[in-house]
């Protein structure tokens, strides 16, 4: 058994339990206490983000699967960004595609209808491997987004050798929901049934925290998740049909059932009968069912009388749906298999890993300005950089017209504009800047927020909210941790300045090349704005040159 828990963390667990956890329990603790699920090294700082505002409906401190802001007429906009970097490095097609699937499920978990996606791609040099990565990442994003009918309306494409071994694939999604019908991720009362849809399989066994292992003689299966947008589409359509019958929704992501059940119970208890979980392959062990990360699954908390109504919507499409357990008052999360206890841990312990404040140390500033460059060289260098070529080859592979509401399309302006169901116009933009961030993460944090705000203004929109995604190397390295803290400080300061509350975000550490060097710090923000008057369309005619600023 390979665990990522530290000695100190294991001691804490033993002390609280007054016994040695069994293998299944260690694995549960391992995923729930992983950085990915628990934010143990970042939570303190995320709490300092300006997350409040008159329009904010659901924000960082609510710790839900996505943030939400009021956009008038009783509607809320739900917003979320996430990366799928490591899976995309191994299998760019499926890695990128499952990233899209994951972010969509976050949005539908709130009961919101997904209306647009953005994709931000960062790859290294365009050698044989770089081209293979890029080609497959784009194809994977298109495969999933197109198949489920959610338009990809914008994004970024950037090249830097810092991403040679560790490409960054970020996807953001926005959705629309009636403000009063937002579905929580957590339950408030015992007695609710736990309903699971989708098959559980071998795939994605071990994604969140332990390395691949041999299974039935096959190698490395665990690392790979195959995208199935067809199943994803059934999950989206059916989930949106049943939201009126459910009390809480969690999608199954990192850490599988272990994490979804524990987080949904949110301090209450739960009993799950693992033999009821629909399986794709017969030979799965109970301990494996608990942590399998198979895609296209959702967990619902449902009043007993509504279980049938929920499941019938899935079964209509031949999609599995079972009542697997219940929320209990006893504050313990229990997994049973045919009545036998497989794991039994206090909710409180699972939800509160020892926080992790690590040493941080400011790196020497890395200003790296080449001297003696002629203006001609500089212009040639900039204009021939692959970041500045037309991105049509990317966005033309995405169905950005589906939904018949994409007003300003990819390639037409610095932000995308969508028509909302209430007639209002929504602008979206994502920005990051790895070069600036590697020189001065604090200034860079401010700068990327300001840049998104400016980009929105070019179509006539004012930013109303943002989500951030913080991508760094190993936080145990003091310079990396310090970069993280400083860029966050910069982002927070700029969001306060522009009154654009941060309603959600995500942290991705351990982005490194194969020699263990961290990537350039790459925080990224996605901002949403509303157009108050009409869309501004920039039109440059022959003979005009427009420069702003000093």
């Amino acid at each position, binding site marked *: 058994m390979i665990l990522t828990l530290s000695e100190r963390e294991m001691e804490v667990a033993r002390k609280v339990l007054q016994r040695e956890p069994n293998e299944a329990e260690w694995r549960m603790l391992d995923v729930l206490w992983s950085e990915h699920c628990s934010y143990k090294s970042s939570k303190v700082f995320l709490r300092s983000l300006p997350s409040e505002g008159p329009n904010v409906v659901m924000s960082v401190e609510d710790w839900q699967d996505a943030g939400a802001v009021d956009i008038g007429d009783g509607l809320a906009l739900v917003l979320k960004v996430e990366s799928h970097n490591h899976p995309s490095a*191994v*299998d760019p*097609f*499926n890695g990128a595609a499952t990233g899209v699937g994951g972010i969509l499920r976050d949005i539908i978990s709130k009961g919101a209808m997904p209306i647009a996606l953005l994709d931000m791609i960062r790859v290294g040099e365009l050698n*044989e*491997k770089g081209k*293979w990565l890029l080609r497959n990442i784009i194809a994977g994003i298109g495969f999933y987004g197109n198949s489920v009918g959610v338009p990809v309306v914008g994004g970024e494409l950037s090249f830097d050798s810092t991403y040679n071994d560790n490409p960054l694939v970020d996807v953001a999604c926005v959705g629309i929901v009636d403000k009063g019908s937002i579905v929580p991720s957590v339950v408030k009362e015992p007695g609710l049934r736990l309903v699971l849809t989708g098959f559980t*399989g*071998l*795939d994605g066994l071990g994604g969140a925290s332990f390395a691949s292992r041999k*299974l*039935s003689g*096959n190698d*490395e*299966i665990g*690392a*790979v998740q*195959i*995208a*199935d947008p*067809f*199943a994803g589409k059934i999950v989206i359509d059916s989930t949106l049909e049943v939201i009126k019958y459910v009390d809480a929704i969690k999608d199954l992501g990192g850490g599988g059932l272990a994490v979804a059940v524990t987080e949904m119970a949110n301090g209450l208890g739960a009993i799950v009968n693992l033999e009821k979980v629909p399986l*794709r392959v017969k030979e799965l062990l109970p301990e494996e069912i608990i942590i399998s990360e198979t895609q296209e699954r959702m967990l619902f908390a449902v009043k007993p009388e509504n279980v049938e109504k929920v499941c019938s919507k899935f079964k209509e499409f*031949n999609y599995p749906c079972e009542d697997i357990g219940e929320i209990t008052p006893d504050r313990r999360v229990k997994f049973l298999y045919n009545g036998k206890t497989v794991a039994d841990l206090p909710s409180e312990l699972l939800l509160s890993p020892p926080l992790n404040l690590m040493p941080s140390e400011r790196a020497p500033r890395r200003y790296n300005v080449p001297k003696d460059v002629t203006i001609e060289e500089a212009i040639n260098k900039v204009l021939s950089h692959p970041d500045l070529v037309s991105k049509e080859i990317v966005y033309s592979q995405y169905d950005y017209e589906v939904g018949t509401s994409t007003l300003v399309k990819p390639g037409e302006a610095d932000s995308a504009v969508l028509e909302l169901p209430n007639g209002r116009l929504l602008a979206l933009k994502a920005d990051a800047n790895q070069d600036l961030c590697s020189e001065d993460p604090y200034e860079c944090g401010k700068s990327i927020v300001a840049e998104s705000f400016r980009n929105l203004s070019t179509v006539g929109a004012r930013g109303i909210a943002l989500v951030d995604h913080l991508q760094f190397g190993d936080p145990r390295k003091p310079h990396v941790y310090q970069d993280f803290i400083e860029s966050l400080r910069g982002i927070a300061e700029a969001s306060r300045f522009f009154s654009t509350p941060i309603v959600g975000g995500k942290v991705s550490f351990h982005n490194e090349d194969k020699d263990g060097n961290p990537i350039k710090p790459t925080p990224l923000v996605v901002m949403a704005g509303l157009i108050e008057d009409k869309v501004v369309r920039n039109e440059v005619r022959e003979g005009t040159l427009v420069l702003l600023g000093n």
Partner: protein
Amino acid sequence: MIKVELIIINKDGVRDPEGETLKRYVVDEVGKDKVADVRVGKVIVIKVNSSSREEAEKFVTRLAEEKRLYNPIVHKVIVRSEKIEDGNN
């Protein structure tokens, strides 16, 4: 001339949603108990100017690796070959 067939298909433990869907919605309609499993993959047929099957197979295998025609983490490959008369088949 050697005709080399390269079959690229997901490894046994790796899911194949295409095969699953085909089984569930098409094949099972004809006879549910008749078929145990359906898998879908890609086939590449290359006619190589060579007189040795072994050499031709090696050539195609190397090509598939170098040009990343498959992803060794997800796929397995099966290589077969046969000698053919020029231009035939």
